[in-house]
């Protein structure tokens, strides 16, 4: 049985426990043994982008050092995240020793007293990458349960930018569409599927998020989709706040299609109940 190390991050644990439940049920159904990191820190949300930003990598590299030690004990090679921001930050931190050596050295020196510095050896993966790799098994377990349903995939920006950490081609991603097809449903294509929803500006300048979500929602409405799925929980939060779209986390739709109803919250079950007469 393949072991996956699991890094939850702050928001999954505190605000989106239903996403965690559905995702872990899906991974277990695919035959993975998912082991949560014994101890973990907040990833930091945004990795550093400037030359003086090395401090912003400290917590992410600390987590990777710890994860690497635990991965060796467990025989695991992949650390999986459910949150798009955790994925982005950890992935950029895991590439630091391949790129900016000066920055890596400063952070590693700072951490030397705590841990053996992380020097590669772990693969940071987002939940949807694991799903995509096992898309045939997903299709087998889903048994085409969602046939005739039109699903819009909304990617957001964090899983696709910057391109060094993108889970797929950032200009024309297909991963989620392939997963939707594996569920038996029909993916729709619309122009705004990778347009940024406005992110943290919902706190500082909500008009930005409102306007961007309206654009995305109008674009989805024109595509004829009956339901929207997204792999990013901040997109989920923003789109729910400013639109009437029926929107789920991708893991929840996959869990429903794979007949893992006991892992879903009553709200999700209510949202998907309209499908039952169709399928």
């Amino acid at each position, binding site marked *: 049985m393949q072991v996956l190390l699991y890094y939850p991050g702050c*928001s999954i644990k505190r*605000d*989106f426990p239903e996403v965690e439940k559905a995702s872990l049920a899906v991974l277990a159904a695919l035959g993975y043994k998912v082991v949560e990191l014994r101890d973990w820190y907040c990833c*930091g949300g945004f990795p550093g982008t400037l030359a003086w930003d090395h401090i*912003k990598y400290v917590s992410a590299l600390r987590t990777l050092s710890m994860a690497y030690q635990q991965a060796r004990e467990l025989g695991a090679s992949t650390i999986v995240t459910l949150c798009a921001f955790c994925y982005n930050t950890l992935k950029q931190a895991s590439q630091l020793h391949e790129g900016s050596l000066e920055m890596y050295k400063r952070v590693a020196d700072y951490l030397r007293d705590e841990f053996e510095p992380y020097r590669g050896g772990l693969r940071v993966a987002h939940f949807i990458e694991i799903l995509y790799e096992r898309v045939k098994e997903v299709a087998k377990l889903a048994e085409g349960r969602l046939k005739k349903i039109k699903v819009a995939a909304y990617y957001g920006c964090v899983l696709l*930018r*910057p391109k060094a950490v993108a889970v797929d081609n950032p200009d024309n991603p297909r991963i989620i569409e392939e997963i939707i097809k594996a569920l038996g449903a029909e993916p729709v294509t619309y122009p705004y599927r990778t347009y*940024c929803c406005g992110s*943290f500006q919902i706190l500082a300048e909500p008009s930005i998020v409102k306007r961007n979500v309206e654009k995305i929602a109008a674009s989805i409405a024109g595509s004829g989709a009956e339901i929207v799925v997204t792999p990013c929980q*901040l997109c989920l939060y923003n789109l729910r706040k400013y639109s009437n779209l029926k929107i789920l986390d991708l893991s929840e739709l996959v869990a429903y299609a794979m007949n893992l109803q006991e892992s879903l919250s009553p709200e999700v079950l209510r949202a998907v109940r309209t499908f039952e007469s169709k399928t």
Partner: protein
Amino acid sequence: MARLVLSPRELREYIREHTGREVTACMHCGTCSAVCPVVNFMDMHPAALVRAVQRSAIDLGNLKVIWACISCMTCVDKCPRDVAPGLVIETLRQLALRNGIEPRTYSQMPIDETTPSILLVLYSRKGTG
């Protein structure tokens, strides 16, 4: 708000030091402004900001573009000359914050117990230099 006026030379050197990018390489194709998802909320679109940094002194206390940017990195990926306007904006934003220029403080945020912690983390990162 406080004023912080920097000359084109100071700006250029500052940006080179902190991003490794060269603003004079910009050929004004406008790609960054075309792909920006928040360009409608900026007083100066990204390409115009790069132009301004090349040509004239800028008062960071009076610049809205640095507070609208969400660091989605689309312009950074798309820039054909590797100027990366998103990183130029990030540099100027951190410079402003470190000099006490701050349009909103954390305590003014509409935060309650339903606010996801990821938002608090992201805003803390973006609201501090």
